[in-house]
């Protein structure tokens, strides 16, 4: 089943680290709900700011109403921001725990060999051979390449983990072979 790794056009050697798991989680948050929650909170923040600035132009009841709305929005904004920060701190704790629980597995080296018509994932206890049309989605998370395979399998590695060929060429090659466009996700 296995072709010689020397024949591979690109080769990646990697291990799962806590930093990689955190980056993956951040990227997933940018793509999903958490980003939506941030947008909603920003709207509350902007409304609060507008109300508190505009109330200076009015007097009496109007100023009082604007002040109350502004105050309420500001409180929701602060509470939401605090909740998101607290949620992220909890997630970081969970990832650390998950990493420590599965440390032995994560620290095992894994290699990806990319050939002309298929690619192979080789680990101590796994050897998979896959056709490129199994890649359903590809993401570039600021230095980390993530691809989602059929069967809900997520594979990821840093661009620095590319040991044969270079990461930019590999990304282009994967786009061409899987006929999938790379999505860019900015992760800070």
């Amino acid at each position: 089943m296995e072709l010689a790794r020397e024949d591979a056009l690109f080769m990646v050697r990697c291990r799962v680290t806590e930093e990689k798991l955190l980056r993956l989680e951040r990227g997933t948050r940018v793509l999903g709900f958490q980003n939506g929650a941030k947008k909603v909170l920003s709207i509350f923040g902007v409304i609060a700011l507008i109300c508190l600035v505009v109330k200076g132009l009015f007097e009496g009841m109007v100023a009082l109403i604007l002040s109350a709305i502004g105050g309420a929005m500001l409180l929701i904004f602060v509470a939401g921001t605090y909740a998101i920060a607290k949620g992220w701190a909890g997630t970081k704790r969970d990832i650390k725990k998950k990493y420590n629980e599965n440390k032995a597995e994560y620290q095992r080296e894994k290699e990806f060999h990319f050939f002309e018509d298929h690619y192979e994932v080789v680990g101590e206890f796994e050897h998979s051979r896959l056709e490129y049309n199994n890649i359903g989605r590809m993401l570039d998370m600021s230095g980390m390449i993530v691809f989602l395979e059929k069967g809900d399998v997520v594979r990821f590695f840093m661009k620095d983990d590319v040991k044969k060929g270079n990461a930019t060429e590999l990304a282009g090659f994967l786009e061409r072979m899987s006929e999938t466009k790379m999505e860019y996700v900015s992760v800070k």
Partner: protein
Amino acid sequence: MEKKFSVSMTYNENVFYHRALVSGPDHGKPTKKSMLGDLDFSDILMSILAFGLYFLATGGVDLPNRIFQSVIAWILFLTVMRSLNRMRKSSKEPSRSESALKRVAKSDLGASGQDGETCIISFGEDGFLVESPGIVSEYKYAGVTRIKETEEFFMIFKSRLTIIPVEKSGLEDGNVDEFREYLEEVCGLAVEKTAAVA
């Protein structure tokens, strides 16, 4: 690889339902419920801070009104925190009811892109081979971390997230009891029976 057992199966909602059934948290000790409900101690501290800040910020207003507004602000803060904590908890610990598991199964099946695909699993001496269209994976028994059994499936855990379902009715050689014994012997693990969902 000398074949000892072989299983043929088709991916459908039932496969993913049983996968969802075994992939949840173990039913160990029930988690202790806090006196504060969905709020944490830090939320209470933050809400007191919010009360204080609001009280200070409304310096121009008469005292009863200031206290009233600050209490409203305090309640509002706690309500927002409670709702957000609930949202976070429900996404971390999804419901385990049958209807919720069926929803998860449907969504996972859609995301997997495997609906209707057939798969053949051949169990050899050192490992097992999973063959589905375009994917051939060989796993070593030494890498199996856990085996769970439901009414219709054996679920082989390669890691916490990678679960390989093996349908009992798809077993082509031998019977379920022989297969269970074989798995326990080659993996050096006891098969854990999963209770059916009430």
